[in-house]
C-alpha cells in the first residue's frame, strides 16, 4: 500500500491531535476557535464550488450524478437502519442510519485538497451536492423513528428548515450561492483568504478535530465489537459502491472520486445537531464516536488514497 498519506502534513496533524488526547496533553483549542476555522473552511469551499457552478452550468450528466448519489444515500440509510434495528433500539438505529446515509464535510474538504494536489479537476456542483446530501438521510432516519410513534407528528417542513439552517449547512449553502452570483473580479480579491491559507487552516483544524476524535474514541469500548467492525468496513464499501455508480452514469474521474467520498463519509456535525432536536432519545455518545472516532480516520488515512487508486484503475 501507498504510504503517501502517512507523509501528508494534513493527516499527520490529525493524528497529532489524536495523540494529544491519548498522552493527556492539555493542548486544546477553545470551541470558539474550532467554530471559526470550520466556518472558514466551509465558506472557502462553498465560494469555490459556487464560482465553478457559475462557470459550468448544470447538464443532464450532472443531474444523473446528483440523483444517483441521492438514491445511494437513502439506500445506505435504509439498509443501515434495518441492520441495526435488530441490535439496538429504534432511535439509535436511526441515528446510525442517518450518520452513514448523510455526508462528511471535513472528509470532503480533505479529499478536495488531495484532488488539487494531484491536479484532478471536479465540478463545482459537487460542493452543492455536499450541502444538499446532508439532508435526505437525516429526514429518512427521523421518519423511521416517527412512523413507529404515531402520536408524534413528523413536522417535515420544520425539520427541513432546521437542518438547512444549521450553522454549518447554512454557511456552506450560502457561500455556494454567493460564489455563484458574485462578480468574478471581486471574488479574486478574496482568494488570498479562501485559497492561499486554506491548507494551513485545514492542518490546524484537523489537529483540533483529532483531539475531539480522541475524546470520542473513549466512548468506543461501550459500542461492542460488531459496531466497530461496521464503522471500519462500511466507509470502504459505501465509497466503492458510489464510485462504481459514478462510472456507470459516466461521471468524470474527479466527480466519481468525490461521489465515493460522499458515500463513504459519515456525518458527525449535521446529524447530531438535527437528532438532538428531533430525536433527543438517540444517544450522540453512540453515533458520533462511530463516525468521528472510526470512520473518519479510516477515510482520511486509507480511503482517500485507496479510492484514488480505484478511480485511476477504473478510468484508465
Amino acid at each position, binding site marked *: 500500500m501507498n504510504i503517501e498519506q502517512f507523509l501528508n502534513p494534513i493527516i499527520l496533524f490529525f493524528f497529532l491531535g489524536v495523540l494529544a488526547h491519548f498522552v493527556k496533553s492539555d493542548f486544546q483549542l477553545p470551541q470558539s476557535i474550532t467554530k471559526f476555522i470550520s466556518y472558514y473552511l466551509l465558506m472557502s469551499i462553498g465560494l469555490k464550488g459556487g464560482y465553478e457552478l457559475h462557470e459550468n452550468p448544470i447538464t443532464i450528466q450532472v443531474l444523473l450524478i446528483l440523483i444517483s448519489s441521492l438514491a445511494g444515500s437513502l439506500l445506505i440509510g435504509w439498509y443501515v437502519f434495518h441492520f441495526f434495528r435488530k441490535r439496538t433500539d429504534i432511535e439509535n438505529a436511526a441515528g446510525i442510519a442517518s450518520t452513514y446515509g448523510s455526508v462528511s464535510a471535513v472528509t470532503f474538504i480533505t479529499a478536495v485538497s488531495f484532488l488539487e494536489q494531484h491536479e484532478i479537476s471536479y465540478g463545482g456542483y459537487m460542493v452543492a451536492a455536499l450541502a444538499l446530501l446532508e439532508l435526505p438521510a437525516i429526514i429518512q432516519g427521523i421518519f423511521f423513528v416517527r412512523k413507529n410513534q404515531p402520536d408524534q407528528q413528523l413536522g417535515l417542513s420544520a425539520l427541513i428548515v432546521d437542518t438547512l439552517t444549521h450553522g454549518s449547512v447554512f454557511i456552506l449553502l450560502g457561500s455556494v450561492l454567493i460564489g455563484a452570483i458574485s462578480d468574478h473580479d471581486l471574488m479574486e480579491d478574496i482568494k488570498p483568504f479562501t485559497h492561499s491559507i486554506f491548507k494551513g487552516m485545514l492542518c490546524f483544524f484537523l489537529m483540533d478535530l483529532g483531539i475531539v476524535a480522541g475524546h470520542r474514541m473513549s*466512548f468506543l469500548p461501550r459500542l461492542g465489537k460488531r459496531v466497530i467492525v461496521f464503522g471500519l468496513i462500511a466507509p470502504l464499501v459505501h465509497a466503492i459502491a458510489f464510485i462504481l455508480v459514478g462510472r456507470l452514469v459516466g461521471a468524470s474521474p474527479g466527480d466519481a472520486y468525490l461521489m465515493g467520498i460522499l458515500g463513504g463519509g459519515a456525518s458527525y456535525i449535521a*446529524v447530531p*445537531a438535527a437528532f438532538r432536536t428531533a430525536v433527543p432519545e438517540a444517544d450522540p455518545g453512540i453515533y*458520533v464516536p462511530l463516525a468521528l472516532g472510526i470512520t473518519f480516520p479510516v477515510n482520511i488515512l486509507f480511503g482517500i488514497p485507496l479510492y484514488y487508486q480505484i478511480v485511476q484503475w477504473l478510468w484508465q
Partner: protein
Amino acid sequence: MAMAVKTKLEIVIPKPDLHRLKKILEYPGVGGYTIIDDVKGQGQRGEKDNLGLSDSFTNVMVIVVCDTEIAEKIKEPIKALISRVGGIAYHQEVNWI
C-alpha cells in the same frame, strides 16, 4: 421589592435544548433569567466536554429568580424536559436585594 424572599432555580441542560427551556420560561411572572453559556459537566449520560461542532457535548446553565408560586408552576415542565433530554435542576430560597 427589597429583601423579598424569592426562589432561585438553577438548571443545567444540553445546549441544543436551550430553546425548549426558554419556551418554558416565557411563563408569565418569570421576570428574567441569566444564561451561562458553554459549561462542561459529568453526569449519568457521560462526559460533556464542550468539544466539537454540533453542541451535542455542551451544556448551558440557566439561573432564574422568581416568586415562589411561579417557581412551583414551572418546576413540572422543567422536570419533564430534563427527564427527556438530560441535565439537572434544583432550587433554593434567596433574598432579593
